[in-house]
């Protein structure tokens, strides 16, 4: 508990994050290269979709991350809203643009996949529509933060939006089971064995971990920037600026 107590203070979190970034960055680079080479070159083509299915190695991890980052953001927002932990608000604020990016990548790659496979760029089925709403939630959260100058008040107001938006997450995940959709049902994130052949599943899992590590790396960088911005009037930041930190 002492560990959390110490590192939930921005002053102590800042150098810890700085030490972790190179490690996460290195793991990201290695996994990303291995995963992409395995997925795009080594993995066999699909029996129905040929080589077009390979966009899955980017589409699926970004779609998973779009949901994961939202959960992180909402939990951070809730902790900052209820317990007033500053670092939790920094976490939520720094996660939002990353989550929005993952959502946008999932939407765009899905659209590029949809045209040759389904025969259309876009349909208003439950999965695609709820994922688009997720994108708007991220953008709305960022816009709300940006519209309030005082970071404390911005955190409190936007936290409510982030918490309430969590309702959309199970809707996205279960949309393919609850309603008839054009989007196919889950292949991996479901009860029972995955319906992806093992030689395709391994690079997919590697890419998923690579995306996760990428998120942590960029998140730590963003959180450090956010901390410096918010604590710029404090002594310890002045020490860093003057080269004493």
């Amino acid at each position, binding site marked *: 508990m002492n560990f959390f107590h110490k590192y939930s203070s921005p002053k102590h979190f800042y150098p810890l994050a700085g030490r972790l970034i190179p490690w996460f960055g290195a793991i990201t680079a290695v996994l990303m290269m291995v995963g992409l080479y395995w997925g795009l070159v080594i993995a066999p083509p*699909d029996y129905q979709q040929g080589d077009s299915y390979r966009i899955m190695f980017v589409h699926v991890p970004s779609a998973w991350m779009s949901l994961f980052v939202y959960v992180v953001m909402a939990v951070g927002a809730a902790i900052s809203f209820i317990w007033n932990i500053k670092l939790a608000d920094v976490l939520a604020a720094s996660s939002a643009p990353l989550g929005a990016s993952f959502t946008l990548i999932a939407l765009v790659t899905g659209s590029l996949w949809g045209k040759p496979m389904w025969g259309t760029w876009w349909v208003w089925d439950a999965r695609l529509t709820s994922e688009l709403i997720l994108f708007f939630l991220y953008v709305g959260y960022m816009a709300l933060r940006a519209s309030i100058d005082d970071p404390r008040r911005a955190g409190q107001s936007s936290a409510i939006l982030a918490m309430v938006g969590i309702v959309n997450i199970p809707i996205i995940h279960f949309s393919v089971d609850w309603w008839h959709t054009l989007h196919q049902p889950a292949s991996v994130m479901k009860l029972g064995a995955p319906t992806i052949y093992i030689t395709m599943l391994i690079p997919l899992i590697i890419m998923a971990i690579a995306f996760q590590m990428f998120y942590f790396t960029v998140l730590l960088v963003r959180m450090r920037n956010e901390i410096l911005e918010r604590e710029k009037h404090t002594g310890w930041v002045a020490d860093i600026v003057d080269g004493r930190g």
Partner: protein
Amino acid sequence: MGPGPRDSMRRAIPFRCMHRDCPRTTMKARTKRMILALVAVGGVAVGTTLILRAFKNNLVFYYTPTQVAEGKAPRHSVYRIGGLVEKGTIKRDGLKTSFTVTDLKTAMRVHYTGILPDLFRAGQGIVVEGRAGPTGIFMAKQVLAKHSATYMPPEVAASLKKHAEFAKQAQLAQSR
């Protein structure tokens, strides 16, 4: 965070009722916020559930042929039906294609003029948009392929098919 009061981080502010005669409540600000958060999320969850239930019929992307037969699809407007392309029913004549869509219970004949998606083939899951003609034939304006959630290399698919045929023949031989 700028310079300013930071005490709220450490100290819980006691809740004071504005009424003069009210006994002082000791509910902490933190507890109040927790209740507010739970009520907000719970309220939106309940509201969304009710809305989604109310619009259940408008949220489906397509109807199955059985639902159409039961009269659940809008009769006089454009709608979509989804199912499998029945084997041996595809007839092509230039750009004109006709085939049967089935949900393994009910089948519907579909007429379509235009380019079909790459994945269109017998046994494929598809979604067609259009309206039912007077003779009960579905006049499609658009055909979309619904690819399955199964991914495997061509060799594996071929060997699975071979095994399936082998098993079928073995079964046939046994029943004779």
